[in-house]
């Protein structure tokens, strides 16, 4: 009889390369009575392992255990409900929420401690109009008002020569007033 397959399996077994199924084949093989001489040394190992697997506790043990836990086990069961992904990741959602809240509080605190001389609720660049149509009616006059406040270069020279004061409302005089 050819034992090459068993020998190959044994070699894999010593190298821990056998699957559980292949190890079952080895166990079954070595349970036989008729084992070739060169494999008999290993038979004792598998017989010993088989004997170890046969060790059992007696039936009285169950009774002792049930007494030890107060015989509640007959009725008590625990139902394991599979965890859905959103339940499983709930802690992460909570953590993300907490981080968001902390960031919001931090930003609010930072904003409240910053000095600001602007009146609350009024943007720095905003102009206020009582009449909603006022901006549109005033807009056409704006270029004219702007050009009126400007002084032509020849005017300026004449005024300087005459020692006349600069007209109020010019850009230079406004700058001096700190406007």
């Amino acid at each position, binding site marked *: 009889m050819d034992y090459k397959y068993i020998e190959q399996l044994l070699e894999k077994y010593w190298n821990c390369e056998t699957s*559980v199924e292949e190890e079952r084949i080895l166990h079954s093989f070595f349970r036989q009575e008729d084992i070739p001489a060169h494999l008999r040394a290993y038979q004792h190992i598998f017989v010993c*392992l088989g004997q170890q697997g046969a060790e059992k506790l007696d039936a009285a043990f169950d009774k002792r255990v049930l007494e030890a836990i107060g015989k509640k*086990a007959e009725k*008590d*069961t*625990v139902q394991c409900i599979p965890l859905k992904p959103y339940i499983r990741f709930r802690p992460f959602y909570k953590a993300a929420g907490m981080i968001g809240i902390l960031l919001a509080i931090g930003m609010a605190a930072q904003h409240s401690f910053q000095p600001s001389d602007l009146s609350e609720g009024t943007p720095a660049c905003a102009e206020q109009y009582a009449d909603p149509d006022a901006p549109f009616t005033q807009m056409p006059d704006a270029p004219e008002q702007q050009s009126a406040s400007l002084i032509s270069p020849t005017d300026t020279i004449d005024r300087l020569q005459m020692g006349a004061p600069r007209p109020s409302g010019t850009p230079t005089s406004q700058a001096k007033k700190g406007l």
Partner: protein
Amino acid sequence: MATVFHNRDKMKTISFRDDILPLKDKLFRLALRITLNTEEAEDVVQDTMVKVWQQKENWQRLNSVEAYCMTICRHLALDKTTQAGRRNVPLDGQAEKPSSLSAPDEIASRNERVRMIWSLMEKLPEIQRSILQLRDVEGYSYQEIAGILQISDTQVKVYLHRARNFIRSEAEKIDEYGL
């Protein structure tokens, strides 16, 4: 063989009587490999059962109740061994001493060489004994053993390789020289 690591997607009701109590023999064998004492192993299994029962509110969070029970059992067995102040590897006189693990009639029925192999296995370090037990007797996969012992798959293979090859070389010596 082993059927652990239940599918999380299926709703499962875990019953102490139907799912945990039947593990007693596997737990007993593992405890026995660690404590090397029948009475202590039995106490360890009972303590394991009580402890698992007390943790019943955590069952639904477990991937595998079986792996959880095995892990607790091993820890309790190691505690027991430490409390007893014993070395987990008996070194002296083991080859001559009949195993204390089974009934006298079982011992008598074993042949001498199998008994020697049995003693050799008791000489292995605890971790190797436990892995040999979980793989070669109970048929757990490497991943399952790694989960129970809380080590990596690679470490499991390394320890198993050492254990198997120690037993192999000793078995060959016994066969050759009749030691």
